[in-house]
């Protein structure tokens, strides 16, 4: 007969009794409603997930144990192995943070969720005759997490996320050339609350993508100004994550920095902010209970610092509490609250929360398009593409429009955007104001970017 569930303090006491110098217990409980519409029917599901995770060890070795349900002291913890474990010490958080009120909003109901998806379907048919929403999946969830460690860290936080995935097809207008067969477009979106999703706007975006995919023609190998819509630019920012995040980021960034100390053009500033107001993953602490904050990773094209968790610093032989704030200008790497847990099943790993390109408030997309004499406005990505940092090359499958004298003249698809990663970074000429976040590796945001020096060629 198993023993009853244990409290966080009970677990810490048990870990101490087993002579673990460092011990941490994390619990998470959540609930979500998933609504799905497919060609062959509709699914509605409701999930309640409860789990816990323990990290424990000393300087010599450590273990990780995790299970569903509530923590129990009779769990058969495995023998410690591998490297030792050093958990972070608590840091006084002086910044104020107030929990957003929409955390308390109820989950989307079954009828409400189905109506949202059906509404997207209806609007899509209105926008583009013959287009079909072949799959729509909306998951609306909320969770509560608690964490306690033997170092004195105590934290409790909540989160609220609604994620939407849409997939649509369109056979395209007869006799207008372009791609043969059925055009397909997918779209992902995430908001803190599902009620913030706008069916008509989503349908319009899908329709635009389908139109380009169905009627676009492949370009020859061409150069010119490339205007990247946020959907494309965010994927590039996500792919550049190795330059900004985690162990070794500083070294990787140094390889692409020029003699003037510029990693990118002066138009580019990159920020990560775990407390971004209104952000989907807005939270006061990270997955290790450490305070989150706004961190400038790149400013005016100059590398400032990498996004490093306390675990990353330990990996580099540094202690996070030796230099907790960069304001001192020590030049040493600093630790910030950026350790994420994908679920209670996973170890915390450093990563961005809301990683974004700082927008320029006064530059509209219309102005940017209007300024292009000969170039391309790329609005959609086929897949994440390839980024080869070792050889300084990248290729991205894209779709969009040819632009002549500030006007879109013809759809382009399929095409590959390519060049060197350093050329991409240094070639950014302007940054728009339309900052948009996409759910990628964390929430990744970018406004429209104008880039020169890249090549566009037909798929092949």
């Amino acid at each position, binding site marked *: 007969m*198993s023993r009853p569930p244990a409290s966080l303090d009970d677990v810490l006491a048990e870990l101490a009794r087993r002579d673990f110098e460092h011990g941490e217990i994390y619990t998470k409980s959540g609930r979500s409603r998933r609504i799905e519409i*497919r*060609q*062959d*029917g*509709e*699914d*509605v*599901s*409701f*999930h*309640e*997930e*409860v*789990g816990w995770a323990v*990290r424990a*060890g000393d300087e010599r*070795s*450590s*273990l*990780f*144990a*995790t*299970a*569903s*349900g509530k923590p129990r002291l009779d*769990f*058969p*913890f*495995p*023998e*410690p*192995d*591998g*490297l*030792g*474990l050093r958990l972070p010490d608590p840091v006084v958080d002086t910044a104020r943070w107030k929990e957003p009120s929409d955390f308390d909003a109820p989950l989307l109901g079954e009828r409400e969720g189905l109506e949202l998806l059906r509404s997207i379907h209806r609007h899509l048919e209105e926008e583009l005759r013959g287009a079909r929403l*072949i799959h729509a999946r909306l998951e609306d969830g909320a969770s509560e997490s608690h964490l306690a460690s033997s170092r004195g860290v105590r934290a409790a936080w909540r989160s609220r996320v609604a994620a939407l995935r849409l997939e649509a*097809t369109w056979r395209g207008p007869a006799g207008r050339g372009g791609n043969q*067969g*059925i055009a*397909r477009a997918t779209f992902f979106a995430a908001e803190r609350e599902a009620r913030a999703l706008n069916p008509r706007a989503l349908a319009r975006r899908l329709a635009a993508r389908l139109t380009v995919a169905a009627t676009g023609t492949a370009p020859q190998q061409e150069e010119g100004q490339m205007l990247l819509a946020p959907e494309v630019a965010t994927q590039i920012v996500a792919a550049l994550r190795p330059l900004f995040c985690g162990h070794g980021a500083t070294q990787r960034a140094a390889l692409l920095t020029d003699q003037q100390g510029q990693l990118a053009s002066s138009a580019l500033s990159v920020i990560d902010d775990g407390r971004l107001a209104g952000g989907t993953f807005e939270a006061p602490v990270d997955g290790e209970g450490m305070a989150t904050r706004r961190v400038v990773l790149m400013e005016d094209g100059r590398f400032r610092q990498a996004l490093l968790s306390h*675990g990353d610093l330990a990996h580099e032989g540094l202690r996070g509490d030796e230099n907790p704030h960069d304001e001192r200008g020590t030049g040493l790497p600093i630790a910030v609250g950026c350790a994420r847990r994908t679920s209670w*099943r996973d*170890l915390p790993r450093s990563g961005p929360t809301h990683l974004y390109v700082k927008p320029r408030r006064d530059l509209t997309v219309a102005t940017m398009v209007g300024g292009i004499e000969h170039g391309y406005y790329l609005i959609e990505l086929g897949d994440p593409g390839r980024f080869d940092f070792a050889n300084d090359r990248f290729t991205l499958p894209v779709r969009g429009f040819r632009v002549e004298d500030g006007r879109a003249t013809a759809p382009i698809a399929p095409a590959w955007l390519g060049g060197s990663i350093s050329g991409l970074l240094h070639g950014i000429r302007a940054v728009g104001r339309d900052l948009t976040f996409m759910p990628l590796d964390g929430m990744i945001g970018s406004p429209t970017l104008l880039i020169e020096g890249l090549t566009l060629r037909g798929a*092949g």
Partner: protein
Amino acid sequence: MSLSGLNTAAIARALAQMGDRPDDHVEAFFERRERLELAPEGEACGMRLRREEGLAVRLVRERRTWLASRDEISANSLADALRQTARVLPVAPYPLPKLTAGSWSTSEPVAPLLDFTPALHRAVRRRHVAFPLLISVRQHQRWVQVVGPRLVPEAEHESFYSIVATMPSGRYGALFTQLDAAAVETVAGCLVSRFQARQAAQISTGRRPVVLAAAAAAVFLHEAVAHALEADVLAQGGGRPESAVGLRLGSPGLHVLDDPGAAPPHVARRTDDEGNQVCRRWLLRDGVVEQPLADARWANLCPALVPGAGRRGSRHEPPGPRSSYLELLPGELTLDELLSKAENGLFIEEVSRGHLDPLDGTFVLDAPYARRIRSGAIAEAVGRLRLRGTVAGLLASVRGIGREVEVAGAGWCAKGGTMLPVWASAPALRLAEVEVRG
């Protein structure tokens, strides 16, 4: 045995109240999972244990499905899930069944995990090469009990190992039912081949004959036959899945089956994740589609389809039609005979991934390297490449089937983001001129 303590009769009575229409499909799904992992050297928390259990209740009515899942096996969690799934309140509810899943069985000895990594390093060194290598070894166990209102199949248990090796040129993954010397040699051989081919020249794009070794042939058939003949994938094209029955999809002599009951020990199944009996399902007989993969929902919608291929990623996911153990029946040719008819072609030993576009039937298969075929023999390596074509075109290009069958090509299938282990046995295959891109 885990999950043996469930009062399945009481659960069945409770479920019987939910299905108030004749064609309703109702079931309760209980699962336990354990994953023991030995992390790569140089990482903290070297030994990692994950245990989880829970249940799901599902009601399928015509084209609609309701599912409720919990991370706990208890009377209250089952009652909650029943209440959330049911469309009407029962007139006279039965008392809550007492649910005791039974204690977890003691974990298997960790010795196979601990021994594997040093043995693999030794096997690589024996091949006189050295390169940075990080290895993660995992043991996976899963217990499943499905309960329906009328039938209660026996509980199922699966146990296998997964390997992930990370080297400078990329990652390699494989599944094994036993971590024995053969598994060590298989992994070492693949890693060394990849390492030795790391700087091999790229081939130019063009059409050429290809011989797929057993492991590569298994992945090819998983993507091109199994996925293409899943009822939900067939429906994405807009037609009815049963309309595929009788279509010629491959060359004559191509027999492909899915038979979960014939899978290697520890992963063989008697029933699927919906509690339906599995069957020896001829996907292709002589190149002609005979019986697509279907779960209970699709079999209900399309009476020509046979259920028994419903698989779930977890209790939180609804089941869907998927293959478990794919078999390609052998032909009569030796490997030498296959190679002799593929002059100036490529011999592909392993495939890193494949992808099928169900809308237009486009199919790609990526290989980390291949070897040229010259004068009927395997020659120098070439770098990363991609096979591309349509499913029908590639399957129609099968010109020869080997006679030596190997259990090979096991791996994780990630269709729709749901990770499932898949197993296969196949001989080598020769394809006529197919499009290969370097």
